[in-house]
């Protein structure tokens, strides 16, 4: 199966589908069928519309229509001060709001040439890793649900709740957290924060084993995911795909290791890589990543230094003329912010490089030649959030 896919899926075969608005009579004679999937289809994880070109059950090609959730976040930034724009970034990838905020704050800090104090960096790492767990848990639950396994959803959401409780106690919101400020963190940790994190790690380790009991050897799961949605490492690189999808194809690239930020160089963790580049491997990589995140949280809590949580930041953030790019490893891949400053209090331009948007491009490569039911599995396995795709 994967051999056929390989030959059909070289980068050159990715071309824009010429879809006609109204099929011509000649077109109707052919066996091919154009089918709309979404934008309200539950398994498209939001408002994604996929136009499928089908030959029977076989997918001949796809085209993604996006923009249903476009809110113009990048444009809004041009009319807000640097501090004011901070809450908006939470609303891009709303299941990983902490990572979004971390990337934005660090990018502005880079522009201002300041660095968050060590304690703030540790708190940031703890929260960002908790957020990675939360994001992967949500992904696992919904992805399994798409393929037909309903039970993991309840367990992952139950355990994610514990993370959201920590967020709520730390910064007062569960989803759109606005946890960090430019220059560090606004909030000191609350009483019992360290213990709660430690207990959480202890609590969730066996739970991840439970998810594996439910899925890893389950024959239905294996049948539905092994060999489905294959993509090679080279194709991933050609498309700019990052995150677990890239790593499952055997490319060992993680920005936390390659270009450490926020003190990730001080922690000991591995980058799980897959070999086959299929849906099953992406599942295994994410599960392994969850375990690594727990390791990082443990170390960060142990090493949590004393000190201030906020660097000295001018009251009015007014960076010098210049531009900066800063990328972090969000749960879904490389999340980058490119900020152009014209020396005023408002950014001249902010461009976000969202991992979901770039990874979604690989959908066509992954599903060509597969069956319709696999499209659902592949959309799930890329782990997209439409808020981030459309911004």
């Amino acid at each position, binding site marked *: 199966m994967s051999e056929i896919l390989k030959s059909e899926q070289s980068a050159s075969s990715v071309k824009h589908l010429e879809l006609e608005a109204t099929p011509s009579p000649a077109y109707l004679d052919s066996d091919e069928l154009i089918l709309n999937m979404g934008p309200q289809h539950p398994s498209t994880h939001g408002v994604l519309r996929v136009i499928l070109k089908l030959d029977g059950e076989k997918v001949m090609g796809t085209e993604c229509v996006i923009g249903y959730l476009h809110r113009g976040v990048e444009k809004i930034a041009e009319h807000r001060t640097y501090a004011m724009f901070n809450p908006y970034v939470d609303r891009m990838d709303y299941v990983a709001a902490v990572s979004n905020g971390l990337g934005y704050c660090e990018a502005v800090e880079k522009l201002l040439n300041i660095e968050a104090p060590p304690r703030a960096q540790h708190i940031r790492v703890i929260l960002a890793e908790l957020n990675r767990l939360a994001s992967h848990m949500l992904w696992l639950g919904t992805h399994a649900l798409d393929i037909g396994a309903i039970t993991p959803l309840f367990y992952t959401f139950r355990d994610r709740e514990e993370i959201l409780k920590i967020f709520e106690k730390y910064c007062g919101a569960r989803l759109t957290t*606005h946890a960090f400020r430019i220059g560090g963190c606004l909030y000191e940790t*609350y009483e019992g924060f360290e213990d709660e994190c430690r207990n959480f790690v202890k609590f969730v380790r066996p739970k991840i084993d439970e998810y594996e009991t439910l899925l890893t050897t389950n024959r239905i799961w294996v049948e539905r995911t092994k060999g489905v949605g294959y993509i090679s490492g080279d194709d991933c690189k050609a498309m700019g795909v990052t995150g677990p999808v890239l790593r499952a194809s055997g490319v060992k690239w993680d920005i936390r290791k390659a270009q450490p930020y926020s003190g990730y160089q001080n922690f000991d963790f591995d980058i799980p890589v897959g070999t086959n580049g299929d849906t099953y491997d992406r599942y295994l990589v994410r599960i392994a990543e969850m375990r690594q995140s727990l390791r990082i949280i443990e170390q960060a809590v142990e090493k949590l230094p004393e000190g201030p949580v906020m660097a000295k930041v001018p009251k009015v953030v007014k960076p010098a003329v210049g531009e900066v790019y800063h990328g972090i490893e969000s749960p879904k891949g490389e999340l980058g912010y490119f900020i152009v400053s014209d020396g005023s209090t408002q950014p001249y331009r902010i461009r976000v490089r969202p991992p979901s948007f770039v990874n979604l491009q690989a959908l066509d490569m992954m599903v060509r030649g597969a069956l319709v039911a696999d499209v659902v599995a592949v959309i799930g396995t890329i782990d997209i959030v439409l808020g981030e795709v459309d911004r």
Partner: protein
Amino acid sequence: MTMKKLLRKVLLLDLLQGLSLTFRYQDPKEIYTEQYPLQRPEVAERYRGAPRLNVNPDTNETLCIACDLCALACPEHLIVVTSERNEKTRRKELTTFTYDLSRCMFCGLCEDACPTDALELTQDFELANYTREGAIWDRQTLEQGPQPTVYKK
């Protein structure tokens, strides 16, 4: 295929493993669902919910000094503060304060900006309303806070 693998497959061990896990969670102890509205969740102390304009508990005077900092800090520009200069004390005094909840994203920037802790986001989270106008709170509502119906068993 080895004998062990074959046996596992024939005996449906992979599926039974999962099923046994599910059955372990049948214990009533494991019930996780909250019975809202009878059972109201306790939100954290730092929770950012409904806004409140604090008054001095002794004198019942507002703590707000009408400095307008909250309105300036808000990314959505949804707070409108008007004030009047008191000729006797030569100080600004708050006259009206409107807060458009329908546009608020509860980011907390206004709360951070307030120099006197007058504006505060509280633990009230039930903000549903029948009209759009009802989402625009005036000074009186802000000082009283929302009055949601509380259901009891």
